[in-house]
């Protein structure tokens, strides 16, 4: 599992690209364009790719069963998640949270449980949608690489 891909994708789906990250990525687009793309994809109005397991798995409400199951998983393994202020994360079934957990866990049985029970049922399909829907790099490539890592 490529830790860099997980980390970068987690960050990209959770908040806008800021100046240091833009520079590190070498994005030619101005920050405002990148922010508008982030909004279009993940925030809305009417986001194209809401990055929540609950929404992608057809629950009518954000969070819901998917978040409850993830919370149970985290509690059982003594894990807690701290989302920085300003991140567009409403519930813990957010892809950014699940990828951060996977990155943290590395390899092993707990990571395998996370992958099998929480990520694989929805994330590969979601990442394909993201890859097809995104109009700008780095979202396109990150989505593709991340999907390759998960499958």
């Amino acid at each position, binding site marked *: 599992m490529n830790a860099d891909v997980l980390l970068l994708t987690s960050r990209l789906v959770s908040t806008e690209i800021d100046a240091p990250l833009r520079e590190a990525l070498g994005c030619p687009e101005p920050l405002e364009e990148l922010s508008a793309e982030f909004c279009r994809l993940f925030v809305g109005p009417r986001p194209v790719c809401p990055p929540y397991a609950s929404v992608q798995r057809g629950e009518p409400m*954000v969070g819901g069963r998917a978040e409850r199951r993830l919370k149970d998983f985290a*509690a059982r393994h003594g894990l807690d998640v701290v989302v920085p202020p300003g991140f567009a994360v409403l519930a813990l079934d957010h892809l950014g*949270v699940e990828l*951060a957990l996977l990155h943290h866990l590395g390899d092993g049985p707990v990571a395998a449980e996370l992958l099998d029970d929480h990520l694989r049922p929805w994330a590969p399909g979601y990442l394909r949608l993201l890859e097809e829907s995104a109009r700008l*790099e*780095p979202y*396109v490539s990150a989505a593709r690489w991340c999907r390759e890592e998960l499958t």
Partner: protein
Amino acid sequence: MSTWTLTRRDLLRAAVVAGAGAAGLGGIEVVHQLSASPGPTGQTTGAVRRVASMCQMCTTACGIIANVRDGRLLTIEGNPADPNSQGSVCAKGVAGPSVLYDPNRLLYPLKRVGRRGEGKWKRITWEEAYTEIADRLRAIRESGRPEEFAFQQGRNRSTDIVARFLDAFGTPSAFNHRALCSLNRRAAILSTIGDSDWDLGDFENSRYILNFGSNWAEAHQGHIPVAIRMMRARERGAKIVTFDARLSNTAALSDEWHPVRPGTDGLIALAISHVICAEELWDRDWFDRWTNYPAEKYAEHVAAYTPELAEAESGVPAEAIRRIAREFAAAAPRCTTICNRGSAAHRNGFHNDRAITVLNALVGNMGKEGGWCWHPMSAWDKKALPEPGPIAPKPTARSLIAEAKDWPLANAWQGNKMRVGEIVYLWIKERRQQISALMTYNCDQAWAWPEANLVREVLADEDLVPFHVCLDVMASETSNLADIVLPWTTYLERWDIDSRPPQGLVDYVGLRQPVVAPLGESKDLREIFPELARRIGGGMEEYFPWATQEEYFERYFAPVPGGFGHMRTAGVYVDPAKKPNYLPYEKELTPEDLEGTRTEDGVIHNAEGPIGVMVDGVARRGFGTPSRKVEVHSGFVADRGREADREISPLPVYEPIPGHREQLAQGRLIMISFKWNVHNAHRTMQSKWLQEISHTNPAWLNPATAARLGLVHGDWIEVTSYRPIDPQVPRGDGSRVGSLRTRVHLTEGVHPQVIAIAHNAGRTTGGPVASNGRDRAVLPGHEPPDHGRVWWAGSLSVAQNDILPIYPDPVSGQQAYHDTMVTVRRIEGTA
């Protein structure tokens, strides 16, 4: 699409930056809970907390109890302690969680980065939003023309804080939706009894109820409180007779349904009055004692309104009218009327509702148990629970649009300014009043207003509306045309003091409180307005001295026994010493009341105005009208009319809708709108639970009409609407307004001269649920993520408001929703 591609080499560099979080510097961080002992799978953590609050899926404000676990709302049920709704809620109320957790909710402040309406947004911080809005508003305020800041509200249950902010700012440009709603009904009741603008029939104790076009089982401002009492009365044998152009679910729950031609309800009431007078079934003593017009003369007035005339106009058989008149009078005083948009939302709606109101006076049921009642308070007791000071003075600046002087009754009552909402955007377009900034609050005028396309045109024009801030819980046709969108909390995440006209005739007060913490970065006006006031400055901030919303409500609820703490636990308070508002007019004035008064023509005045009336030698409170009696003859409305060069009959009359007879003879139909039980305004179409139940709106046509037009069930039709032919209405030249395409639903449940279309449909934005999959919000060729589960995607859903002409009743300004003339023709194919 960018031509640049990310490489694996960029990735490594970027991961270092993105992964600063691993060191606690930026990304999502995972930590081990050292003390946490792993629990077994599948166990629920934490207990369910029950939080009392108030619904606001519609304006009825029923008491609710929210079941919350681990900070998440699970379900909503009714609060039995609420005296109005008594533990009942409707389907919309139950669906609250689906709005709270709607995947398409607005949860971050957004600023447009493209053209207005282009749909390109970026997130901004609240700090940035506050700065930009405050700078704009401060400049307007300091320019000395505060009226150029306009506030457009939809259903506003936070009236205290809204008025406080607008008054402190100094703008009179507060635009509401009353003229699109209940203006005529309110004006009719106010002019007749003065005490109140809202009748509250004592249905529970009634034996006979005449319903003129109120859909209380599905919609209505008093929906659940009325419906539960009606059903109890009916179980005890009361009879309910409904006049409606359409077989609504209310009509279906009645004992009798009579289809009526729209705009003739008042004539039916006058014909019933005719029978009651002619056959002397009246309570003549009461009428002569308590109204300002002799029964004998009223009988002469209604003599022309025969049941035969009513039959010819309305379609209700004369014999049925006679029978109903006799039954109604025989049940007196335990009989009452109820009416609403079916009778009031017409060009002649003011007189319709006056005629209906006076019918009650004729049988002497007013204020009596089981009769036609009311309560002087439309909300809580504002003397016992005054608004915490300091209170800002009312604005001195003038707003031409808010004053709407062409419509004499719109703002005729002090403290009850109703405005003429449907002309706002027309007048902005005509540049009658300069608008420099517009704030939209809980309103989707770009979808919900008559001639909504005109509203969209105005909102898209940066010359006409240079700055537009929209505050709502969801993306809408209106928020799409804003410069800044602010994410509003749902009613489940915010505070209010609230209550409705009390259906049990004893006033009460309720608390709306957050049942969960606000999602995302959403905020309520109660947080936004004080902050804006501080930043605008110039003294505005002085009116917002409290540090927290809780502190404000501690002060507000201090007079309640147990204070704010009681309200937070119980959600509601009723003063046990208060009695139902029966026979308030008979109350004798005390010697203290009479001190320093003078009596003129029987009316008792003190320094502030009339306070009572001499009846059979006794000084009584009477009614809140100038004559202190029921004003069957209203000199007040006639005078207001004269001032505006409009003739308003002081007696209830039937005025046929201009142009209807001629156009009906040509085969045109009258188009009406209606509401389903699971839908309210734009917001309910956002709920997946509710849209699953009702998501389509074919046009209802009577089979006889369809046969005449050569139509069968399911046919596609084009409906074309026309402006009224009426010099007293803006642009009343009979010209074409627009067309819509829909399909035919054949039913006997609609009057043959009517085409009925539900108006809770035709959203084009808000996501796939709200728009039946039309708002794909993805690249062409890709299904939206939830599309597969919107199993009704592609169902017919047509926006009716676009083809409704702006049509204010010349007397009051009430939008004549149900008077639009249309032609219908069969077309091939689809929408």
